[in-house]
């Protein structure tokens, strides 16, 4: 499992014990998560999860509703802290940096780990270009040339540039649902994060807009590490390199997407991906 046979990523099968995980020092993991537990009040919604998220790859998080996959995603950029009841234990390292270290501000973590939500949420008071640059402007970037460059660059990466380049100053809410979601992706990319978290980014979109988002994800992984929560098995199978299956707050199985969908080692995984429950 070690050495030259590894490609760009570190794959941990559930057969690997916690001890082994701690001994391995992956160098190419964007996010190294160890024993992550998240509690809401007395309720433990995530139970001692350990995963390495490979860089420049797409990792899909699947599982039935309430299995903790959204909580897992939000713990990766400390968004779960918006809930005052939330507590966590364990460790998450972003390219080696402990994101829960006492000296680390959540604001800094979130600039490095961007997020796209299920419901597209461009700011209604802003134009298309203002939406793209809002993260930069409110963090102190004033230079118009930089902002204009970053607008075009981000919109191109989000595959939206050609559709909106003639109306950058139109209100963002004049766009269609699929365009709004790609605008949100552009907005997240504009602050140049290292990791992009996507929480069911296409679940509210029609099939055509969904396939555009999926193509986009495949394109984006060349530059970014992507973690995507999805309810859509086909989407996970099509768009991801690795898949993690969560059930009742536990990580049941994690591995290459092809393996999870063709020969999972756990019965529960197989039942879920074949649609027998969940």
């Amino acid at each position: 499992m070690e050495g030259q046979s590894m490609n760009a990523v570190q794959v941990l099968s559930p057969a690997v014990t916690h001890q082994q995980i701690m001994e391995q020092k992956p160098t190419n993991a964007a996010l190294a998560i160890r024993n992550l537990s998240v509690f809401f009040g007395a309720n433990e919604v995530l139970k001692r999860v350990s995963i390495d998220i490979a860089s420049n790859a797409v990792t899909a998080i699947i599982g039935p509703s309430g299995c903790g996959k959204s909580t897992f995603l939000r713990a990766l950029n400390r968004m779960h802290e918006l809930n005052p009841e939330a507590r966590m234990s364990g460790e998450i390292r972003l390219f080696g940096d402990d994101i829960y270290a006492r000296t680390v501000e959540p604001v800094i973590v979130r600039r490095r780990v961007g997020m796209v939500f299920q419901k597209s949420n461009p700011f209604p008071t802003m134009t298309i270009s203002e939406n793209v640059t809002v993260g930069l402007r409110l963090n102190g970037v004033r230079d118009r040339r930089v902002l204009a460059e970053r607008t075009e660059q981000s919109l191109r990466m989000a595959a939206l540039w050609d559709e909106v380049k003639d109306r950058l100053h139109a209100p963002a809410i004049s766009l269609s649902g699929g365009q709004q979601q790609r605008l949100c992706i552009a907005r997240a990319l504009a602050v140049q994060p290292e990791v992009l978290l996507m929480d069911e980014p296409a679940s509210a979109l029609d099939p055509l807009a969904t396939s555009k988002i999926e193509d986009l994800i495949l394109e984006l992984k060349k530059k970014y590490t992507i973690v995507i929560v999805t309810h859509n098995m086909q989407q996970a199978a099509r768009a991801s390199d690795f898949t993690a299956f969560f059930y009742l707050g536990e990580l049941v199985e994690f591995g290459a997407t092809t393996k999870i969908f063709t020969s999972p080692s756990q019965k529960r995984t197989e039942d879920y991906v074949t649609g027998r429950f969940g």
Partner: protein
Amino acid sequence: MTASNHRQRQIRNALTQAIACACAVLVIMPLVLVFYHLVRLGFTSMNLAFFTQLPRAVGETGGGMGNAIVGTFILLAEAVVIGVPIGVLGGVFLSEYGSQSVNWWIRFGADILNGVPSIVWGLVVYVLVVVPMHGFSALAGGIVLGLIMIPLVMRTTEEVLRLVPGGYREAALALGISKWRTILQIVVRTALKGIVTGVLLALARVAGETAPLLFTAFGNRYWAHKLTEPIAALPLQIFNYAVSPYDDWHRQAWAGALVLLLLVLFINMSVRFLTRERWRAKA
């Protein structure tokens, strides 16, 4: 089901409708009457002198309420300066920060303050501002109107901020924008029209306040040049003229009342306009 039963129900239905209709007319009636009388008695006295000149001495006819009109605007401006920042930021605290138990007490306090009779506000400011400053002043008048505005503005601000979907807060925070910037430049900006609406309604409410001004702003028959001097205000002037024995002053009181009503009407129309345009995208 018998035919007579059916007939009875028809009668009852018609009766209910008639009573509701009559009540609706009764609701509108005072507004119509007030307008009718103000226009009939006040409109003829509204001329250029009324808006630009000082009141004349007793016995002389003519003159105007220029100082009172300007005074009302000065007092309202002071009230905005004092009431809006505190009210809006208080509303921001209630909606975006504070814990539930603390907020419950603040809301409870604000609701009680909203019910405090305005003359009590006047007494409080008399003791806290007028007495220490050894005199009535425009400052004291502005402070009392500002204080009355605070709980009103705070509660409406809180309500409209709560209407801003949580998704916008999350989106901004996920971009690494700090919480205070998210609140001021995303949340407040999204709710800005609602906040302005709340401020205007509070302004319309205090524009006609008379009682608290009696022993704060006091009134003034001349132009006020400093905020530390007593200042004239439309409601005060109307009160003083209306209780006077002179016909010409009565005439002017009607005109002053008409101007005050038009001012409040204008503010309310602005609110209508703002709320109608709400959330609509600029093309």
